[in-house]
């Protein structure tokens, strides 16, 4: 056991600098980190906290435009900051492995999965090619990938996202490293898939007694995975403690605020009067991309001043439903009514006023705002376009809107989107929608690209705006915590159909349709035993496969 507990990685007083406008600015200010063999350390914090930078530094690597400017990184008795690059390269891949956030982007699309697995062991002469292939299949089996004998011989685009993430974890294990760095490995996955990957990672780390650094911004996830948790803020350590202590009694204010995020709830509204004409009403809508049917018989109503959350995994058709409402994808049958009036199917045939009434807020504020336009132009355009405002009137309106989204007008008026943080960009997206003076707004995963604290701010803002302006929201999301926070009614979708719909309170109390139950129970909770208990409850090793069997 002495060997098991020995220190594997010790980082002392790590300083990292990043190059901004030809100046070096310190982004990590002296962080210490100790990791024993077989231990899993969770690094959490908002974006920009330096989680990934520290994770990479544990391999002695600094991204382009960054440099390790001080401190020491000792890996198994070896000082990484002074090791030549060629030795580091051997170390990475063979003794330290890295699992990236997006497996889909990290695999080379033109090589088979198993060939990418065998590359490192063969190159470092750890195993022969055939041995390594057998080893891969064995690991695929342990990670409970379907058809382990055959799946490796497919190309990355031929397997699903969750399977690819597991294959990548297997690949990280290919040289039996002492340390694996997981950089947000499940952030891009659906909740039901996330469980498979989490269970797989936990098992494999256990089985091989591998040490791991698990980087994430999702507290509930890190609670399942890590032995100890370290909280980071802007390149500084906030606190560190073992998982249970950290969850039960966080010491620092910042940590407490992170813990409290999930407690936001919008005020419960009275149920909408069914006799009142809904703002938007989808009636038996079918839609298809070419010959492939993506929506079948979708009907739901959205009343003024209410929020309807549309929930489902990726590919369930929730965004397609939004495209039907906006007229980007004309339905093949069924109608969309706006305040009792049938809307033309295509947005091209709608009047300016109909277009004005329904606005949209996008998931990725980066692609939703024109990078070459100033904030004043981005927000001002809808106001000028619909309201024919000019000059001083227009400026007044833009100031009003910036006030509404709680940004200081004078400071932001002349800026470009690139000069804003993620949360500020999303606020600008909201202001652009508000500039049209709409009655109905579609929010397409508006918080999923944001940190939890920032996301909470956006949700509060949307809630305030709803009360002030009596807006109706269609809130598309896969995050059930968000649903719990803001929804009045919930629509659960799966494979282009509505599985269940009803008021929020009813939806969060069982019993339900099996799929809804599966979805709800898959949302990680802040209890460190949650995953273990859940797996036992379901009585299966592989929750994802079981879920699929369950439905068919």
């Amino acid at each position: 056991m002495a060997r098991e507990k020995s220190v594997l990685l010790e980082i002392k007083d790590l300083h990292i600098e990043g190059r901004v406008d030809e100046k070096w600015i310190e982004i990590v200010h002296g962080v210490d980190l100790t990791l024993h063999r077989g231990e899993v350390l969770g690094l959490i914090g908002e974006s920009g906290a330096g989680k990934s930078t520290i994770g990479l530094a544990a391999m002695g690597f600094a991204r382009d435009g960054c440099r390790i400017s001080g401190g020491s990184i000792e890996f198994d008795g070896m000082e990484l900051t002074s090791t030549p690059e060629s030795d580091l390269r051997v170390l990475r891949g063979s003794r330290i492995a890295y699992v990236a956030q997006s497996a889909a982007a990290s695999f080379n699309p033109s090589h088979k999965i198993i060939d990418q697995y065998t590359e490192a062991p063969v190159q470092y002469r750890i195993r022969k090619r055939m041995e390594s292939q057998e080893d891969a299949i064995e690991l695929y089996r342990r990670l409970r990938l379907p058809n382990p004998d055959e799946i490796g011989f497919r190309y990355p685009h031929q397997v699903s996202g969750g399977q690819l993430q597991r294959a990548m974890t297997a690949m990280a294990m290919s040289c039996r490293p002492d340390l694996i760095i997981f950089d947000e490995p499940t952030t891009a996955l659906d909740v039901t898939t996330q469980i498979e990957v989490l269970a797989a990672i936990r098992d494999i780390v256990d089985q091989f007694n591998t040490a791991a650094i698990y980087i994430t911004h999702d507290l509930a996830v890190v609670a399942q995975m890590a032995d100890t948790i370290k909280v980071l803020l802007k390149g500084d350590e906030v606190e560190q403690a073992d998982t249970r202590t950290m969850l039960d009694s966080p010491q620092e204010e910042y940590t407490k605020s992170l813990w409290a995020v999930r407690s936001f709830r919008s005020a419960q509204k009275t149920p909408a009067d069914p006799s009142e004409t809904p703002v938007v009403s989808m009636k038996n809508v079918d839609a298809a991309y070419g010959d492939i049917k993506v929506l079948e018989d979708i009907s739901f109503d959205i009343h003024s001043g209410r929020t309807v959350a549309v929930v489902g995994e990726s590919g369930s058709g929730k965004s397609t439903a939004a495209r039907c409402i906006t007229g980007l994808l004309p339905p093949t049958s069924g109608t969309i009514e706006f305040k009792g009036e049938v809307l033309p199917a295509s947005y091209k045939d709608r009047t300016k006023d109909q277009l004005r009434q329904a606005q949209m807020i996008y998931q990725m504020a980066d692609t939703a705002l024109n990078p070459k336009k100033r904030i004043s132009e981005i927000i001002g355009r809808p106001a000028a376009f619909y309201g024919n405002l000019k000059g001083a009137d227009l400026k007044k309106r833009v100031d009003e809107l910036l006030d509404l989204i709680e940004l200081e007008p004078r400071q932001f008026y002349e800026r470009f989107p690139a000069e804003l943080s993620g949360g500020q960009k999303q606020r600008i997206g909201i202001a652009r929608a508000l500039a049209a003076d709409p009655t109905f707004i579609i929010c397409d995963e508006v918080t999923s690209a944001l940190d939890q604290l920032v996301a909470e701010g956006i949700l509060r803002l949307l809630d305030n705006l709803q009360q002030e302006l009596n807006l109706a929201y269609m809130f598309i999301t896969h995050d059930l915590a968000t649903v719990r926070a803001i929804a009045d009614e919930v629509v659960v979708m799966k494979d282009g159909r509505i599985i269940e719909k009803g008021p929020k309170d009813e939806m969060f109390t069982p019993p339900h349709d099996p799929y809804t139950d599966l979805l709800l129970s898959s949302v990680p909770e802040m209890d460190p035993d949650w995953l273990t208990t859940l797996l036992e409850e379901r009585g299966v090793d592989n929750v994802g496969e079981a879920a699929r069997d369950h439905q068919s």
Partner: protein
Amino acid sequence: MNYFIIGYYAMLIGASCVAAYFKNRQAFLLIFTLTLVSFVMGLIGGESVLWSVTVAAGLIAASAGIAYSFREFLIIILPKQGAKTMRTAPLTASFGLFVVIIYVIAAVFAPVIAPFGQAEVVGTSFAPPDDKMLLGADQLGRDMFSRIIYGARNTMGLSLMTTAIAYLMGCVLGMLAAVRGGWLDQFLGRLVDVIMSIPSLIFALLLLSIFGTQLYILVLVIAFIYTPYVFRLSRAVAGNIVVMDYIEAARLRGEGTWHLITREVLPNAMAPLVAEFGLRFCFVFLLVAGLSFLGLGIQPPTADWGSMVRENATLISFGEITPLIPAAAIALLTVSINFIVDWMLYLSAGLKD
């Protein structure tokens, strides 16, 4: 052994020692390799080869010096934002800028700079250079230097106009195709394929022999030939932009096609289009020069670098470098523009927004 050769090797070896002493690996390797190569070349070619090496090294050093001081000059005179960009510019780019600016000055102030008119006969044919005629006379006794200056104006002006027209047509059509899509995209795309399937020089010869060789026809024909290339580029660039959410937002707002093209797509497509403009300008420039060389381009007695190469081509057999001067002018401009384009491509790829 004379002083030149001794000095030559002494300097090289001394410089290598200095580089080695200061642990400048790259500089040492370069200088010492040059020393070794010089031994071999000196043995084979004798002193004259060493002279040309010295001249070449001197020219490169002078160009680097010009580029360096010109960059410093620009950093000082430009406003803050421009100065910041220039500070990161490589020497090649500032050299390119310098050459292009010299050419532009020559083109704009041609009548002031040139001592004689472009069609003025001032000496005997093929007169050697003297005080009056810096580069000698051509086959009709016209001043070579004056004709080169006027040539900058004619050849560059024509190419600039042509490229601008090609760009106007290509960009508008390309972005229209990308924004509208559907049958319009298909139709324009196939039309462009047909035009591009004909070799450009032959197509130009064909069209020029049908329509005549007036200047405006020349401009239109070359613009027409290069429009498809611009179309393809702008359509591809715009194609990546029109799938963005902000374009979707603008469409859903009910914006017209013209607004989409000019206000939403074009500002984001500027960087690659401008870089391509420089490159396309070179191609047009070379095609004009080539057509002039074949006798279908700019008509005499108007001075033009392409036809000047042809007219003086016979001199090359007498070991005279006169016909190479307009050719060198063409080459220098093309290389310089490419230096600038490389830099701009780097800038547009490295931009953070």
